[in-house]
Every structure is written in structure tokens, then in C-alpha cells.
């Protein structure tokens, strides 16, 4: 079944649609417009992440601690959503985690280097939302951002919000 490519196409089209819609109301896109697009994509990802994690952890036992949750996200969850495991997980043991994926699935088709680096954030917003949604349903409120310096490798930074 080739539904992975169908999902990739859908994701590309969603990103493209959001940006064209935002642009059509005015001539140029300014930073505020871009921020709106990113947050819309992120909130869509949030809902999807919540749904996916519910289905995925239906039958699993509860997690021991935060680090256990993050390891699950890096292995099983990442495999289901992005078709590979996270390559590197780092933490300061105080609520900040950095997940590094060296061949991030939405970036592999864009470039393998520095070309189109400025376009990369558009394609990461949805994924940040998916991760944030998944963590939220596992009981961890967080802020997820992504950073790319060389495609297709990218780093997701998760900062867990303490109450």
C-alpha cells in the first residue's frame, strides 16, 4: 500500500493551500501572516497527534516517567507517524528534550543541503503540532519547536511545561 505518498501529497497540499489563502487577501505576506499560517497548521497537527496517540497506546501500560514517555515518542510513535525512529534524543533532565531526526520524512523530498532552507518551517509546523498533541494526551503540556540547519536533518525541541 502506497498510502504514505498519499499522505505526503495531502500534507503538501494543505501547506500550499494555507499559504495561498493567506496570501490572496493581500499582495505580500508579512511575518504576521506567516505566523498565522504556522499556528493554523500547528493546531491541525495537534488534533491529529491527540487522535493518533490515543489509538496507539490503547493497550499499553502506563509510563513510568517523563523520560519513558519521550523514549516511546522517539521509537514507536515516530515510527508510526514519520516511518523511522528518532536518531538522537538528548535531555537536560529538567524538562527539555531535543529529538534529532536525520532524514525527516517531510524534508527528504525538498533538498539535501541548504537549498530551500527558508521553506522548511512551513513543512514542520504540522509535525510540531502532532508531537505536541501526542504529549498533551499523555499528560505532558509542552512547547514544541523545530529547527533545521541542513536538510533533511532536523531537531525538535520539546520543553515540558511544569504547572
Amino acid at each position: 500500500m502506497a498510502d504514505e505518498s498519499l499522505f505526503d501529497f495531502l500534507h503538501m497540499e494543505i501547506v500550499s493551500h494555507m499559504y495561498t489563502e493567506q496570501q490572496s487577501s493581500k499582495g505580500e505576506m508579512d511575518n504576521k501572516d506567516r505566523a498565522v499560517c504556522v499556528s493554523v497548521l500547528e493546531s491541525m497537527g495537534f488534533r491529529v497527534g491527540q487522535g493518533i496517540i490515543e489509538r496507539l497506546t490503547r493497550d499499553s501500560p502506563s509510563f513510568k516517567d517523563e523520560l519513558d514517555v519521550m523514549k516511546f515518542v522517539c521509537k514507536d510513535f515516530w515510527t508510526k507517524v514519520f516511518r523511522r525512529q528518532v536518531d538522537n534524543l538528548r535531555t537536560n533532565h529538567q524538562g527539555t528534550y531535543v529529538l534529532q531526526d536525520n532524514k525527516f520524512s517531510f524534508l527528504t523530498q525538498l533538498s539535501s543541503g541548504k537549498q530551500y532552507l527558508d521553506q522548511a518551517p512551513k513543512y514542520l509546523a504540522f509535525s510540531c503540532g502532532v508531537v505536541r498533541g501526542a504529549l498533551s494526551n499523555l499528560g505532558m503540556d509542552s512547547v514544541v519547536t523545530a529547527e533545521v540547519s541542513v536538510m533533511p536533518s532536523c531537531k525538535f525541541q520539546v520543553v515540558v511545561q511544569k504547572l
Partner: protein
Amino acid sequence: MSRQSNRTTDSKKMNSELFTLTYGALVTQLCKDYENDEEVNKQLDKMGYNIGVRLIEDFLARSSIGRCQDFRETADVIAKVAFKMYLGTTPSVSNWSPAGDEFSLILENNPLVDFVELPDNHSTLVYSNLLCGVLRGALEMVQMAVDVRFAQDTLRGDNVTEIRMKFIKRIEENLPAGDE
């Protein structure tokens, strides 16, 4: 061994769940952005068209199917190869018009609408309209102009989902002026 096969079926279902959930989030967002269902239907069709014109290349690359001889063959390829490949379901082809230019795809189950219910105030929403756009866009890239619409929809109370496809005309390849 059995554990591994469990994971493969799970991962297949998982992928379609990811697609279904993302599609649901998209439709929800469109409903928020546009005031009426007609407009959302149009946007879904437009987005589907954009996906379709690219998807056809992916399909041809994966399936290595040659040119179809007639519309009947096209229908079979769409139902048995394309739908199976991308959505994991094989619709049946039926209700051919006497002229052989119109047919129906009957889907017993539509993966896009798993877990979905239409609220009462969106009764004219064609939820899966993206599919119509995809089919239209993909066929246009292989020189066929078609009209695609939903005749029946399980979300609106029908028993099955029926997509009606009508052949309009063959698109002539237009060479840019000045080419020999």
C-alpha cells in the same frame, strides 16, 4: 513471526488512520475558514485536483500500467489498482450508461470517513469531495476530461458510497505555438 505480522497490519491501519485524522482536521479547518458548505466543497475539489495532477505520476511510476485502450479499462484500473494502492479498498465498477461513457464506483467502506459523523448544520457538505478532485486531476493529466461527483454518501444516510464518473472528452495535447 506472528508478532511481526501483527505489527505490519497495525502499521497499515495506522497509516490510514493518520491520513483519516489529517483529512478530518483539514475539513474541520476549512469549515471554520469558509462560511458555507458549498465553498468548502469547492475548496476540497480544488485541493484534490492539485493532489491528483501529481499523484498520477506517482501512480504510473509505481504500477507500470500502460495506456488504457478505452474508458472501461480506465475504470478497472482506477478501481482495482489505484484505489487498492492508495486507500486499501477496492470499489466495484457498475451502472454503466448505454453509451459506455459513464459509470459508478461503489465503495463498501470509505477510509476517509472512519470515525466521522456529520453534524446537522453541515448536511450539504460533501465530506470526501477531495476524492472527486483527485480523480479529475489525475485523469486530466492522461488526456481525459471527466466529471466526477458523489451520487451516494454513507455520511448522509445512504447505504454505500457511490462515485459517478462521466467521460466528457479527450484532451488534445497542445503544442506551444511555433513548435514543429
